[in-house]
């Protein structure tokens, strides 16, 4: 197996696994940081809509805001180059979680990909909702796409806020047609369901990070491998991570570790609750730009508890959940108990829903809207708590709500996405009095947890992105410390076989009963071995290897000496006349009757039968065979035949 690292971000992995007969892509990540080069798309905001054209460049769609230059255009995405990956040669894509799932169409559409996509059922459902939400947001953008002039170095390179990457590599978002075409290639799996891809056994195992998130065990005849995607051994809401399968693998490819430093997701959770409480107590509103599936389900309950239990916060403080897919997300949460932790799951045995969302909605404490238009604009009141998307604050309802709440310093935006830097999210809104508070909620495994996991699993080798073996300054605890670790650089290809002693590669083959029945074992004269020669057909049809009885005679190896004298005697026995022609190292016997020649090597190691008549070739071949001993495993001895008990 070869492993190539195609992602520059260790927390957004993309690896290609290659065997002689299969190429499997692990995960399809997308990077939203290009959004920060684009002007926020809000519905009514004179401040943004009337932003002046940047004087320095005099391009109509380059706007200036707070001494920064933004592109007024639908925002674009960065993802791994499909040309580098050669998507038309990829046989399968394994998607570990719904965050990776969202990026799928960028890799599968227009790239020549014709394989299959595998993902857990619930990651598919939530991933689909995220796709639909983003496409709805994109469709609301009224601005036409800009030309690409701004992407030249002489323009964007001179921005006060130049892009992090080369924007020429950025791509516009995929279309609804792309999404549907992509979804048609998806096959959904249960946890611990094993599939066979070209004799490679692939199993998604509970990783505990988000609903339906999985890491993968990948096993061939000779390799036991695990791809450790975003995982959380301490999950409280989602199904608990299973670690036992990691003890049965030799190599673990570690990805997607937590980016929190000197804190934990649990501490961040407490901090979030305290911050929301403080803001509400001061009669401020809280805006949480957050993904409409996953941790939001628990947060809605937590916020409701805050309002219920805290003196000084009015009981009728509304909680708004705004998203084109909010209703579907809430409904999906109510039917996903099988994918949840045991404590959540136990609710369905009462029978109640795993979350209290339905009751909160019935009592009016939580209100769901699919957009800011319509009833929300009439019913909206402050103070309140708003859950809305997109977390980048460049498209969607959340960006607009910053403008609505921005003038009041009592209000707060709490940024929780650990992969979107709070300062970049905030930048276009810097001049607004509203507070921006950074509380990253990173539920991925941290280095200490990984160390404990590896101590338990004891793989022969750990592989990882090279960034995980380069410690931050004076922080040796922020790297993977394992006795055998192999870092993989971006675009580097690693051959797994180099990590193993030159072990012989073996393939399991089923033997047909008829073949078993006809085996004749002979006892080895000096060792406690019995040897049998086998001559049959191997069927590799459908990658299912079987030894089946042969319908025609199979050529076996031959032993003995073919001397000229033996051949001449055999010819005389057949009454075939032969004319001898001696040459250096060999003698040619011409048999006119059969229109054939036999060439005999003087050293007795071989012979050639020449004839354009197949039937005659067969006759001579049969004659030669009678001189020789066919390989039966132990040549040239009168060995005892035995029947081992098979």
């Amino acid at each position, binding site marked *: 197996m070869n492993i190539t690292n195609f992602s520059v971000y260790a927390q957004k992995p993309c690896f290609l696994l290659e065997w002689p007969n299969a190429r499997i892509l692990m995960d399809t990540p997308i990077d939203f940081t290009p959004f920060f080069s684009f002007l926020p798309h809000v519905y009514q905001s004179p401040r943004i809509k009337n932003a002046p054209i940047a004087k320095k460049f005099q391009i109509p769609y380059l706007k200036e805001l707070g001494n920064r230059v933004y592109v007024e255009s639908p925002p674009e995405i960065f993802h791994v180059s499909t040309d580098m990956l050669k998507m038309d040669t990829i046989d399968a894509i394994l998607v570990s979680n719904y965050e990776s799932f969202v990026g799928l169409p960028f890799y599968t559409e227009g790239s020549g990909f014709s394989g299959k996509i595998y993902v857990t059922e619930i990651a598919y459902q939530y991933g689909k909702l995220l796709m639909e939400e983003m496409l709805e947001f994109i469709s609301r953008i009224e601005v036409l796409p800009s030309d690409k002039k701004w992407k030249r170095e002489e323009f964007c390179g001179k921005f006060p806020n130049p892009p992090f990457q080369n924007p020429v590599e950025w791509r516009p978002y995929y279309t609804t047609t792309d999404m549907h075409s992509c979804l048609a290639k998806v096959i959904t*799996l*249960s*946890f*611990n*369901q094993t599939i*066979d891809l070209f004799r490679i056994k692939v199993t998604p195992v509970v990783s505990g990070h988000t609903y339906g998130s999985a890491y993968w065990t990948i096993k061939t*005849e000779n390799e036991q491998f695990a791809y450790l995607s975003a995982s959380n051994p301490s999950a409280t809401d989602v199904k608990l991570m299973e670690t036992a399968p990691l003890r049965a693998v030799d190599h673990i490819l570690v990805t997607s570790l937590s980016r929190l430093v000197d804190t934990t997701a649990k501490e961040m959770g407490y901090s979030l609750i305290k911050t929301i409480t403080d803001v509400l107590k001061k009669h401020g509103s809280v805006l949480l730009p957050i993904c409409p599936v996953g941790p939001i389900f628990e947060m809605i309950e937590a916020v409701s508890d805050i309002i219920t239990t805290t003196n000084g916060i009015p009981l009728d403080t509304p909680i708004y959940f705004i998203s084109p897919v909010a*209703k*579907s997300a809430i409904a*999906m949460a109510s*039917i996903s*108990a*099988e994918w949840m932790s045991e404590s959540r*799951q136990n609710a*369905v*045995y009462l*029978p109640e*829903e795993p979350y209290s969302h339905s009751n909160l909605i019935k009592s009016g404490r939580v209100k769901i809207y699919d957009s800011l238009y319509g009833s929300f604009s009439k019913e909206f009141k402050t103070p309140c708590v708003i859950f809305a998307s997109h977390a980048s604050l460049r498209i969607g309802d959340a960006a607009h709500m910053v403008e609505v709440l921005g003038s009041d310093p009592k209000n707060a935006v709490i940024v929780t996405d650990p992969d979107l830097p709070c300062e970049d999210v905030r930048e276009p809104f810097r001049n607004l009095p509203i507070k921006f508070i950074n509380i990253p909620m990173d539920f991925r495994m941290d280095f200490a947890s990984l160390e404990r996991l590896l101590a338990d699993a004891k793989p022969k080798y750990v592989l990882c992105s090279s960034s995980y073996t380069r410690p931050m300054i004076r922080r040796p605890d922020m790297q993977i410390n394992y006795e055998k670790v192999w870092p993989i650089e971006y675009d580097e290809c690693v051959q797994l076989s180099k990590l193993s002693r030159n072990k*012989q*590669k*073996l*393939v399991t*083959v*089923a*033997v047909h009963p008829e073949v*078993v029945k006809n085996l004749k*074992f002979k006892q080895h004269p000096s060792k*406690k*071995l*019995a*040897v*049998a020669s*086998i*001559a049959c*057909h*191997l069927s*590799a049809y459908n990658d299912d290897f079987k*030894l*089946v009885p*042969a319908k025609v005679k*199979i*050529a076996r*190896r*031959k*032993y*003995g*000496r*073919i001397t000229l004298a033996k051949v001449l005697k055999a010819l005389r026995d057949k009454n075939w006349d032969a004319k001898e022609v001696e040459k250096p190292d060999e003698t040619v016997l011409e048999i006119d009757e059969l229109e054939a020649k036999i060439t005999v090597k003087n050293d007795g*190691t071989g*012979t050639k*039968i*020449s004839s354009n008549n197949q039937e005659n*070739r067969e006759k001579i*071949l049969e004659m*030669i065979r009678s001189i020789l*001993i066919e*390989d039966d495993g132990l*040549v040239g*001895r009168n060995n005892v035949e035995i029947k081992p008990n*098979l």
Partner: protein
Amino acid sequence: MPDKIPEIKIVPLGAGQDVGRSCILITIGGKNIMVDCGMHMGYQDDRRFPDFSYIGGGGRLTDYLDCVIISHFHLDHCGSLPHMSEIVGYDGPIYMTYPTKAICPVLLEDYRKVQCDIKGETNFFTSDDIKNCMKKVVGCALHEIIHVDNELSIRAFYAGHVLGAAMFEIRLGDHSVLYTGDYNMTPDRHLGAARVLPGVRPTVLISESTYATTIRDSKRARERDFLRKVHECVMKGGKVIIPVFALGRAQELCILLESYWERMALNVPIYFSQGLAERANQYYRLFISWTNENIKKTFVERNMFEFKHIKPMEKGCEDQPGPQVLFSTPGMLHGGQSLKVFKKWCSDPLNMIIMPGYCVAGTVGARVINGEKKIEIDQKMHEIRLGVEYMSFSAHADAKGIMQLIRQCEPQHVMFVHGEASKMEFLKGKVEKEYKVPVHMPANGETVVISAQPKLDIRVPLEKIDRSLSLDPNPAKSECPFVAELVYDQENERLNIMSTAESEDLIKDKNCMPITLSLSEIIKGKKVNWKELSNELLLYDPHLQLKDDGIEMFDGEITILANNSDETELELIWDECREQWFKVIHKAITDLISPESSPVPPAISVKA
């Protein structure tokens, strides 16, 4: 390691040649698995339980059983579970799907109430027994491979029939048993069709055979008949009672009546037993992903199981005058609300009872279906004058469905359970004739021993596999010549394939040197262009070598040499083991140098 010839033993403790108290004991590779642990509703004594004394001699079963599997929540499949685990004694794992895990205790508790509170039964499992039993239950997802231990694994497949019903594959090494439980190969309004993954080929298929001789008429025809009968009865002012189990049939029939009432604008009230109606629909909502695709697609907007025309039954509404339709539990009239209402309505010929499901022999329901006109219920004789209709809405596979499943999963053996002996006999003959596999139909307590076909797997060096594949030019690769030595290590009882190096090492005799046999044929034609020819042949051997005196392929196992100075004659030489390639190469050469062929355009690039 070559396996010993494995043995699979199967003993029905219940549902062998009858329906009720389903309980199959499977022994495979030394592991003991109990599938289903049902109750026989037709008996009130110990005969309602499977005969657990068959194993353990009446003692605890924990040491004997490796695991217990429950296929679905019907009482004839799970009704004895608390008795088995808490009274007889079993503390190992109990596997069932998540919906079954949710619903099972509700029905057990409902039944326990009928037995203890209504009938005054004293020697019965308690509410605490049910709770403690359910603590041992492990939920299963469909297609999930669950390792019971290092050797034994199980896997669930969708069965249709009722919410959460599953067929279970029990696997140990290369041998497996697929137990269907109750299943339905035909989708209905709220559930999908039973299906197994491709490639599931069990050693033994244990199939229910409730309708072994039935090929039921069109589903739509039965539904129209049902609707017509209900409509006629209520139009005459009569009352219709439809005894149902709370989950499964009831949902299907409610959807049917709801849409009919809506279409016909009827206002005759339809009631559902109050106790379980709301909870039942909540279970369907919580486990909507186990229903069929149509319901899944609409569930966000509207719960398919919230009915406009069907209301929870209120106290005393069975006494109100005028027509009505009542869905009431339990389904076999073996107690509870349905029996109570039946006693009130059964003497009025205007009324009707529609029995939509199978009734176990001995229950009041079965006697009504059999046409008895006087039935003693609770020590009182009742005249049976109401109309009696038996309509099979049971979501069991019929003969056609059973044959379909056998065709899909190609078992080596078939076993029929959960049906009547004479009907099984009929289907047994049909299966044996069509699929040529042995069919078993044991009675309760009868042991069937199945010796699986011996299966031998050996580990072959990849080099030998590659060698074999390379000797066959056919892309199907289904008949590749394979030659090797098998070594049986008598000390370790291990069978291996010798590598080539090991093989040479065993040969010591100088008079027994390896011999190469070659064959050749002369091909005449135009003067050969060696570069052109080698480009053509690269397709077959990327490592082909073009040399001064000709072309060498497959490391010298095939060579092509000029046979005369004009190079208008070529000699094609091949080793004996390359016989299969001879025709392919010969044709390629002939196509190129034959005088009759048109000139081949010069190759611009080598074919991949």
